[in-house]
């Protein structure tokens, strides 16, 4: 066998071996690679203050796909205090990881599905274990505004419709695997069309942007959507996100709420 033939033979052998590897564990690195998102200023649906409609986001990195069942199983193995049979109830409700047949592993073949049934506390702990954090709402909103070729496609009726079509579609029995949707402008997938996602500043979603309201003791607790001052009301998909996040407390879990991690650009949280 000459040298070239040997190289080809070895390459073919490697390919065959790779094909045999369980797709759930094919990625040695437990955290999916992140995409860099340059900072910028954009009009947000959640105004930072009365009369201020734009927000500025510093450059950050975001996971290209949501965290999967297999990713989360590795985390639980390394941090058994987050097993569903050991977690302190204050951090996760009874639904936490209830879709796994065992406390430490998802069902076979479900490893590449996005992990759901995870509380905000658990998502937070996962990202911290990766030296990262959850994305803020504004970071998420910025990435969520992108189509395949535009950083901000929110004014594009066709793009809006494509997102609304997802909401209109009945939920599949099984969540699809991550990464099936085409990458957006930033190279990030599944921002729309797969799951809801936790954000870092969950506790700020319901707060009125007008702090004068806090002075009146009789309305000291902000009440539901009455406190929200939405902009861009035609941006229904984003409002759905906010409504869903606002309805969740940090220990709640649901079959459609998952997450991905982010980090300040340049590494570190």
């Amino acid at each position, binding site marked *: 066998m000459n040298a070239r033939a040997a190289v080809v033979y070895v390459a073919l052998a490697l390919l065959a071996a790779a094909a045999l590897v369980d797709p759930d564990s094919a990625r040695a690195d437990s955290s999916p690679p992140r995409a860099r998102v340059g900072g910028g200023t954009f009009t947000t649906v959640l105004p930072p*203050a009365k009369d201020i409609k734009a927000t500025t986001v510093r450059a950050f990195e975001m996971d290209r796909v949501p965290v999967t069942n297999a990713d989360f199983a590795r985390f639980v193995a390394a941090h058994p205090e987050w097993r569903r049979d050991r977690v302190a109830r*204050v951090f996760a409700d009874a639904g936490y990881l209830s879709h796994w047949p065992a406390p430490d592993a998802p069902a076979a073949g479900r490893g590449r599905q996005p992990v759901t049934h995870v509380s905000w506390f658990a998502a937070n702990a996962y990202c911290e274990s990766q030296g990262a954090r959850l994305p803020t709402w504004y970071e998420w909103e910025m990435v969520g505004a992108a189509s395949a070729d535009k950083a901000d496609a929110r004014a594009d009726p066709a793009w809006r419709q494509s997102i609304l079509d997802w909401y209109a579609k009945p939920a599949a029995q099984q969540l699809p695997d991550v990464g099936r949707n085409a990458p957006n402008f930033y190279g990030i997938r599944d921002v729309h069309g797969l799951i809801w996602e936790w954000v870092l*500043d969950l506790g*700020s979603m319901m*707060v009125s942007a007008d702090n004068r309201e*806090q*002075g009146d*003791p009789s309305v*000291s607790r*902000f009440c539901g959507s009455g406190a929200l001052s939405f902009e861009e009301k035609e941006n229904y998909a984003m409002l759905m996100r906010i409504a869903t996040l606002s309805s969740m407390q940090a220990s709640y879990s649901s079959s459609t709420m998952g997450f991905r991690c982010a980090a300040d650009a340049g590494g570190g949280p």
Partner: protein
Amino acid sequence: MKRALLLVFTMCAIAAPLAARDSDPPASLYHLETALTNQDGTAHGLDVYRGHPVLVTLFYSSCQATCPLIVDTLRATERELSAAQRANLRVLMISIDPERDTPQALRELAQERHIDTARWTLARGDASTVRTVAALLNVQYRRLPSGEFSHSTVIALLSPQGEIQASSSTLGHADAALLAGLRK
């Protein structure tokens, strides 16, 4: 000597940051590992008053609107108690503004408001700690571009083991729900 003591104190705090104990009930907030620092610069956890009933609330010291009222409300609650109940009660106020609320700023507030730091603690933690504590207490807050914060007010009564026994958003007078819990 004082410095040496402080050093020993700090080292103990570093060696034992883990608040949770296996014996804590599942709903205890003391499962959370929390690194707080009080008005004297001493490190402690959320369970600094473990073994006592504790009123916990979030605030920030530069706040002009609600926060003076929070102290007033905590005091009004204390006044409704018997001397023995009052002596057993502890108060933990945690700042949502770690950038400005340094231990010194907290100390100044304690002096200004004549707060008895033997039974009350003003504390700060990093942004991540504050977020997690706020989530546990179900407090919503947001930093405004002006540097002020908009936040909901929650005063929670924790049991000696750290479970939320009652939670109140009443300001200006003692909440009957908190008093009922405290008188148990």
